[in-house]
Structures are given as structure tokens and as C-alpha cells.
């Protein structure tokens, strides 16, 4: 498989502040990459650099084996979809779709053909002669995608395309984008702060913070094997539980307060004693039991629960810490009950608190 996008040692400074720091990223052809992170992490900035809308300070950008570092946005073989749709309000949908092609002096026949194809794929044929003002949010975003589509490019760049839509439309269009990707098999780079979008769409997710990619991996790995504390805390809703403690017994047990948990079955990590460690447990990796199992459970008291439809998120108190556990709605315990929480240690994440990295 050839590489579609290569970012080499990319650095971007705005004056004295450094936004992207020596970034390297390789995207395979036909891959769907999601850049995920909180606001201000540099994900949109990176996308703008790929598009050529921002001048970079240092490094190189290659698209389709061509060094496009100095190329104009229109010469890079990219199409871009923006959060605010950015449709030209004075032009009809057809005008919006053909604007780029007219600028590239594509023959009228070819333009008509490509517009018709894009309209067919996105099912916007009845809208072609309307102005953007007469369209709904979902229709506008479809047209915006169409504008990238007609350009017949290898790389699609999405800048939070669904953030302006309501929840229902968002999930509909999410599926449509995924369908579009499987049909066209283009390379897609998709920026979002919505982890559900990231987890559902991506072949690989790049979790970013402070202009640095924290982890770049498949959604499953990002979710189950977060590389550091930031990724662990950022991914997952409801959020992961963190328990401060230490590894003892030559690194074979985790101790916090009066509780000692056996680490047998935990994958990876150098086995040694660490005085400052952090155990990360997702709410669905804990089970509520009535009886204790030595080395695998710890006692807790039920405080409240939050029903979420099929499941219920139960909040418990253990060793002065708030712990959340996900249980089926009909199995939620009564408030005030004294129970034991069983830890699925194979699915847990253990971090060294000093460098915040996964052990």
C-alpha cells in the first residue's frame, strides 16, 4: 500500500507560540484518519496546513508522493469540508459544486457530468437549482461534501463537519460519510472533538494534545490500551475511573489504601515496584458482587445511580474515592448497599504517575 499523505517534521509557530511541534504522520492510501483532541490541541491547524491554507514554519508535506509544501491549496489534490459549510450564498447548489471546476477551466460537458455524479451519490439532485439559504443544515453539509467530491481528488479533509448539526442528523450523516468512504475508498482526514465520531468512523485515530500526537492507533486499541493518562481520560464516556496507588510485591500487585489487587493477567509492562502508580478502570470493566474474592475485589458503598436507558451508571464510594460502574438497568443495587467490586484486570490500564505513560 502506498502512502497518501506524509507529514515530515512539521512545525508551526504563530509568533512565539508553537502550535505544532515536529510532527510526523503517515496516512496510507484509502485510510480514514481521525484527528481527535480538545479545543486548541492543533488538530484543525494541522488540517489547514495539509490543505495549504496556513504557511508552515518548518518541515514538509507530501501528498500522493508529491512534495506540496509550497503548493497552492487548489493544486494539492484535496477537497475540504468545513464546519460552517462555507457554501457560497449567492450561487445555486449547482454553482457551488461547479465553482472549483470552472476555476480549473474544466470543459462544461465534464463539469455537468461530474456534478451529476456527485448529486447522484449524495442524493441532492432535486436541490441543484436552489440557493444554500433555502436548504436545511443536513442538506447544506451534503452540498459541501459534494463540492469536495466533484473535484475528483484523492484526499478529503473534513474540519468538524457535523458539529453544527443536531444529534439526530449528526448520527445520520456520520453513517453516510462512512458509506461514502467505503464506496469511494479515498483517503480521508477528519477532525473532530467528538469521540463517538472518532471511534465509529476511523481506521486509525490520532489523539492530539498541545500540538503533539499522543497516540495513533486503531479505535479499539485507543479505547482499550490508551498509551498515557491523557488519552485514557479523554476517550470514553462515561470517563475512566482512576485510582492512585502503588505497585508492590515486585510489581505483581497494586495497592491503594487498605486494598491490594493481584495484577496477574495484566498484559505488558516492566515488572517492578513503583511508588506512584495509577490504575485506570472503565465503568464496564467493573462488576458488582455481594461477596469478596481475595485479590480481585475491593469493598464499596453505593451512593447514587444515573439511569441511561439500557444501562445505569452506579456511583460508589471506596477508600474515599468516587467510582462509577456500568450495570444493566434491572441489576442496579440499592443506594447505601455495601458491595464488592470485581476488577477485570486484563482490561485495566496501569500508568506510571511520574511520566503519565502506560506501564
Amino acid at each position: 500500500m502506498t502512502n497518501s499523505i506524509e507529514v515530515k517534521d512539521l512545525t508551526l509557530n504563530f509568533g512565539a507560540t508553537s502550535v505544532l511541534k515536529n510532527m510526523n504522520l503517515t496516512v496510507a492510501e484509502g485510510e480514514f484518519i481521525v484527528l481527535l483532541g480538545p479545543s486548541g490541541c492543533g488538530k484543525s491547524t494541522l488540517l489547514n496546513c495539509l490543505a495549504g491554507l496556513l504557511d508552515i514554519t518548518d518541515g514538509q508535506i507530501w501528498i500522493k508522493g508529491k512534495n506540496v509544501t509550497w503548493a497552492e491549496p487548489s493544486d494539492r489534490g484535496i477537497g475540504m469540508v468545513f464546519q460552517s459549510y462555507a457554501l457560497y450564498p449567492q450561487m445555486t447548489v449547482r454553482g457551488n459544486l461547479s465553482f472549483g471546476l470552472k476555476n480549473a477551466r474544466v470543459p462544461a460537458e465534464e463539469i455537468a457530468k461530474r456534478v451529476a455524479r456527485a448529486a447522484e451519490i449524495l442524493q441532492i439532485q432535486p436541490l441543484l437549482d436552489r440557493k444554500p439559504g433555502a436548504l436545511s443544515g443536513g442538506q447544506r453539509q451534503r452540498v459541501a461534501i459534494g463540492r469536495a467530491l466533484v473535484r475528483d481528488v484523492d484526499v478529503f479533509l473534513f474540519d468538524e463537519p457535523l458539529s453544527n448539526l443536531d444529534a439526530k442528523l449528526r448520527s445520520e450523516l456520520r453513517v453516510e460519510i462512512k458509506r461514502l468512504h467505503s464506496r469511494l475508498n479515498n483517503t480521508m482526514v477528519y477532525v473532530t472533538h467528538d469521540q463517538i465520531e472518532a471511534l465509529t468512523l476511523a481506521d486509525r485515530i490520532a489523539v492530539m494534545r498541545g500540538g503533539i500526537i499522543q497516540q495513533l492507533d486503531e479505535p479499539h486499541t485507543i479505547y482499550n490500551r490508551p498509551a498515557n493518562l491523557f488519552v485514557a481520560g479523554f476517550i470514553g464516556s462515561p470517563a475512566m475511573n482512576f485510582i492512585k496507588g502503588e505497585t508492590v510485591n515486585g510489581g505483581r500487585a497494586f495497592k491503594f489504601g487498605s486494598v491490594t489487587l493481584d495484577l496477574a493477567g495484566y498484559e505488558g509492562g516492566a515488572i517492578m515496584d513503583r511508588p506512584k502508580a495509577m490504575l485506570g478502570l472503565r465503568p464496564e470493566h467493573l462488576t458488582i458482587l455481594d461477596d469478596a474474592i481475595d485479590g480481585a475485589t475491593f469493598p464499596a458503598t453505593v451512593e447514587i445511580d444515573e439511569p441511561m436507558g439500557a444501562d445505569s451508571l452506579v456511583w460508589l464510594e471506596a477508600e474515599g474515592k468516587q467510582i462509577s460502574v456500568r450495570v444493566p438497568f434491572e441489576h442496579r443495587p440499592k443506594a447505601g448497599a455495601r458491595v464488592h467490586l470485581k476488577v477485570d484486570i486484563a482490561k485495566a490500564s496501569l500508568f506510571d504517575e511520574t511520566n503519565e505513560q502506560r506501564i
Partner: protein
Amino acid sequence: MADLTSAAPARHGVLEGARGTRPRRALSGRNIMIYGILIVMCVYYILPLWVMVMTSLKGMPEIRLGNIFAPPVEITFQPWVKAWSEACTGLNCEGLSVGFWNSVRILIPSVILSIAVASVNGYALVNWRFKGSDMFFTILIFGSFIPYQVMLYPIVILLREMGLYGGLWGLVLVHTIFGMPILTLLFRNYFSSIPEELFKAARVDGAGFWGIYFRIMMPMSLPIFVVAIILQVTGIWNDFLFGVVYTKPSLYPMTVQLNNIVNSVQGVKEYNVNMAATMLTGLVPLFIYFVSGKLFVRGIAAGAVKG
């Protein structure tokens, strides 16, 4: 379900006390205040206009009777005709018509040129930032605070050296330059209210500096162009100082000619002709305001959103 629908109207009739829209008295103290002030203000502005129109429609004997508010007994349009085509300015007795056409010839290129330059300025300052563009803008705005009188003579020298002094194009240039600060500010503010993503999308679509300007920005900015046109038409039409300083008598704009007619010291003061001449001079700005009032307000409001 049947119970609920039958119960609803019954309860409706039972509601007692205040209900629905609060009643308003037509003749409240507040309304009397508001309408009273409005009427006084209207009279204040309409009265001078009334006097002018009435006087311009009277003959001189009737004017000498002194009832300036009274409508004419005998309506005559002779003063208007005289003001337009016969009144004397200095040695010429061709009326204001010469000045009118001079003003038109000055106005059209000045308005087009100043708006063209300023709108491109504003567009470049918002979307194509260059090194020192903020500094450039600051200097430009600072220019609008310098009193004209300071620059009057230096510009005479500049125009003389360029060979434009006393001609029409010299005056056009002066109007273009002096219109630039305020117009650039106007356009910059308006363009910065247009989402940046639109500009980015156009760049990805391969449009260049002029392509984006003509195909994207300009069609979206009709209201602000109307505002600029109104500002420039009225400003340039009403200009007296530059007209009298930078042109020669044969090219004097209408305002200067009006002054020459009204302020001539020889002979009888023809109040009716003076009034008619003044009305004629004011017609162009008046017309512009009436035609474009609505667009004007919309443009001003749109430009004010973001600064």
C-alpha cells in the same frame, strides 16, 4: 381522552382576574410625550423646507409683502427656470446647469474610483494579511483625523507637479484619497464579518485574489457598497472646499456656483431664485437618500456587527 377534551373549555370560562394580553391605553402619558416630541421635531425640520419651497414659487412682489410662511397666491415656476439656466455667476449668465454637469462629471469617476480602491483595500486587509498590514491600516485610519486644511496647500503643490492642478482629474484624485480612510474602515469591517471559511473554501476551489473578490466577496456585499455609494455621492456632491481650491471657474461644481449666485452683491437679492437654486443643488443627495434608505440602514447595521 374524552374527559380531558370536554374539561378544557369548561375550565376556560372559569378563569378569573387578569388574563391574556395586557390592555394598553391609547392616550397614556407616555404616548403623549413620545408623539408630542416627534411632532415638534418634525415641524422643526419641515418648516425651513416649507419656507424655501413656498418662497421659490412666489414672484418678487409677493415676497416683499413679507409673509414668509404663507403659500403663494400666484404660483410661478419662473425662479426655478432662472436658477437653472439664466442666473448669473460672476460674468456667466448660464445658471446652475453648468455647475450641475460639472458636479456630475466630478462625481461619477470619484465615486467609482474611491469605492473600487477602498473595497479592494478592505478585502486585502481582512483576507490577505501581509507583513505590516495592521500598521498600514492604523496609518490609514490616522489619516482620517488630520484636518483637511493642513493638507490643502501641500496638495496644491503636489497636483501642480503632477500637472493635474485646476483640472477635473486632479479633483477626482483628491476625492479618492480623502474618501479612502473611512471607506476602507467600512469595507474592512464588513468583510471581516464574512466567515473566513468561505474564503478558505474559495481558495481550495482554486480562486485567486481577484476571483475571490469579484465572484465571492462582491456579490455578498451589496449593502455595504450601497452605503459607500451614498456616503460618497452625498459627500462629494456637497463638497465646496476642494471644488473651489482645486478647480478653475469653468469647472466649478454646483455648490461653488450656488454660492456665487446667492452671494452675488450686485443688483436686487432675488430670494425666490436663490431658494430655487438651493433646492436644485440639494436634490441629488435627497434623491439618493429616498431611493436607498432601506439598504443604507441594512448596510450600516451589518457593518457594525463586528469591528
